[in-house]
């Protein structure tokens, strides 16, 4: 047992830090730091810079651009990326559909999709959730009827993140309506430009537009877009959901926000003194920092354990990372709200080319929207209630 990073690992950390902080444009990273929404272009730009260095899809198989990094390297890569406020490579591409294609698709599909997916030439969105299903994902009803060499898709997906930017959607569809719940589901890739697809934005309480409803009305999809076998889609979905869950703790993001909280708390004055000198405020912050440090160590333990696990078998301990990670992220957004105080009140959506001056200090504009927006992190990707069910069953045997 050696709980310190090796010299090689420390060197890798330095390399990653330098790369992220010099190669990814400051302008994009500042937006992330300040909590502003990123444009499609920002995300594409950043991912292509990473991909040019081979760092967009390090967890993929080597032949498709992966890096064969050790768990510790993988961790350092994520941590430095998040602390440098570099946007994570699009998770729908990198952590979701990419690994599924690499594992289950045929060679033709791999060649067609993987390089473009790594370079964000194709922007993917995820067609899993449906209005009637919620946490009970397998009760989905969107149907795909096989007619000749096509599927005819009908139904509705929801909570589809950034569908407005997407070129393709990877979809769970019901291909055998007579089979029971988890059976009869297939994994289908659909070009968003196909006739019959309609995207309707859902405005969220932070004022942003991150998620959408996607409607399928007799959408014709070539049968060659089926991944793997028909009616085996649920297996691929489970593989996808269990893939590379260690990033979900988002420790680096919370570290970056704590740094920002401390900087801003040095600017805000309360009773004539900077807020950061207020012992009560510092203790609240310290309590979160302690939990975050513990989470980081927990993440490292899960990461180290991953080497020993069968690939693609999710480690149920990753549910802990989700549970605690989401709560800590949310706490940091609350602390940021507390720092800016009344300045959090004006609603000033960030717009490119805004004319009017900002009301109050510029650093305060995103505090409330970020707090509102981050309520989602304990809901999406399997709500914290679902995570508790998983841990109760898979780890505690209850």
């Amino acid at each position, binding site marked *: 047992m050696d709980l310190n990073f090796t010299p090689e690992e420390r060197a890798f950390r330095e390399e990653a830090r330098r790369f992220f902080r010099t190669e990814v444009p400051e302008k994009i990273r500042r937006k992330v730091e300040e909590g502003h929404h990123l444009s499609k272009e920002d995300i594409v730009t950043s991912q292509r810079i990473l991909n040019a260095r081979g760092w967009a899809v390090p967890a993929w198989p080597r032949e498709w651009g992966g890096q064969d990094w050790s768990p510790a390297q993988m961790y350092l890569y994520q941590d430095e990326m998040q602390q440098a406020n570099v946007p994570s490579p699009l998770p729908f591409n990198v952590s979701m559909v990419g690994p599924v294609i690499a594992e289950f698709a045929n060679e033709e599909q791999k060649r067609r999709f993987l390089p473009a997916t790594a370079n964000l030439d194709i922007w993917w969105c995820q067609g899993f959730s449906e209005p009637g*299903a919620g946490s009970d994902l397998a009760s989905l009803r969107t149907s795909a009827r096989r007619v000749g060499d096509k599927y005819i898709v009908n139904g509705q997906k929801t909570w589809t993140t950034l569908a407005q930017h997407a070129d393709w959607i990877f979809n769970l569809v019901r291909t055998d309506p007579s089979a029971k719940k988890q059976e009869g589901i297939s994994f289908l890739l659909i070009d968003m430009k196909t006739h019959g697809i309609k995207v309707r934005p859902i*405005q*969220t309480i932070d004022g942003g537009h991150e998620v959408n409803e996607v409607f399928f009305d007799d959408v014709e999809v070539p049968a060659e877009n089926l991944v793997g076998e028909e009616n085996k889609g649920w297996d691929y979905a489970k593989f996808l959901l269990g893939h590379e869950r260690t990033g979900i703790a988002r420790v680096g993001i919370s570290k970056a926000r704590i740094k920002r909280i401390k900087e801003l708390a040095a600017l805000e004055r309360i009773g004539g003194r900077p807020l950061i000198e207020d012992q009560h405020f510092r203790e609240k912050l310290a309590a979160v920092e302690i939990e975050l440090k513990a989470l980081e160590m927990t993440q490292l333990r899960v990461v180290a354990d991953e080497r020993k696990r069968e690939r693609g078998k999710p480690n149920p301990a990753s549910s802990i990372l989700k549970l605690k990670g989401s709560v800590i992220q949310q706490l940091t957004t609350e602390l940021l709200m507390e720092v800016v105080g009344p300045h959090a009140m004006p609603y000033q959506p960030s717009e490119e080319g805004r004319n009017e001056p900002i009301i109050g200090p510029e650093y305060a504009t995103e505090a409330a929207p970020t707090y509102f927006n981050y309520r989602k992190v304990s809901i999406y990707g399997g709500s914290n*209630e679902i995570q508790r069910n998983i841990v109760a069953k898979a780890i505690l045997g209850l």
Partner: protein
Amino acid sequence: MDFDLTDEQRLLKDSVDRLITERYDFESRNKYRAEPEGWSRALWEQYAELGLLGLPFPESYGGFGGGPVETMIVMEAFGRGLAVEPYFATVVLGGGLIHQAGSEEQKSALLPQIASGEALLAFAHVERQSRYDLANVTTRAHRADGGWRINGEKSIVLHGDVADQLIVSARTSGSPSDRAGIGLFLVDAKDVTRRGYPLQDGLRAAEVKLDDARAEPLSNPEGALSVAEQVVDAAIGALCAEAVGVMQSMHELTLDYLKTRRQFGRPIGDFQALQHRAVDMYVALEQARSMALFATMMAAEEDPAERRRAITAAKAQIGRSGRHIGQEAIQLHGGIGMTMEYKVGHAFKRMTMIDIMFGDAGAHTEELARLGGLFGT
């Protein structure tokens, strides 16, 4: 000790509750928000007709002689509907300041106008550096031509975009955080530069710039802080009542959702873990309701230290209960709770802003600690 409403209070409650039920469903609220000023002038007239706009003023000024209990009844109903009209700014804060600090003449001139719906008021006290400290005032007033002029900038003036008259806190002497040397002044909105904007919860505010603006003092121009504090304390009590309405609405929406939303073949309200969390929300709601009552009871307390202790405790409880209930309401709704298409998220945002107004739960707990707490001292 008697928690029953009088017949008049019961009547008032019935009529306000009916108004909110009939006119303030979620779709209507969206319509009101889409109106040019961000709220409904038509409803404002109806409030006037129902006597709500003059409720807390003496009958001699066109009011109905109501007290903190009456205000609580109205504010709680407004909270349930997430009402966006400038009632708090105009009647509770503005009217309260005129009533408590104004001269006979000022009261006779303005209170009837408020009661009839003709005049809208706003209280301009926040400054960029002031956070939650009413005494932190750098805006300055000076005498000129037998009157007063004010120079400075006020921030986040609630409904300051539509107010006809502003009540402005300004320093006549002393340095920024001195308790002495602060006056309250009436300023005609035409004499200031203002920029209106929406707040996070859909209500509106304004940045106000006073450039040698003509001003008329309310009360003593050298020492108005304590009367401002008194009115603000009562207003916090009213805000607590509104918050209880907001929380109750969030809790009811959550219960409805738990009972109707089905997953895994049954209503999600069948799941015990969610039931227990709904119970904890309910306990938080009842604790908040209790403290709103306490604040109402103490709003007119004459000993300012006693009053402040009670108000600050109530605001802290409201903030904590509201945060707990709001966060849980969103969580138990799941994704739908995150959308603008559903009421609960709007309630969550309103509750979050109420927590911030006049100091969040943390700030008030800190203040109460400094004041020595509530018991055994």
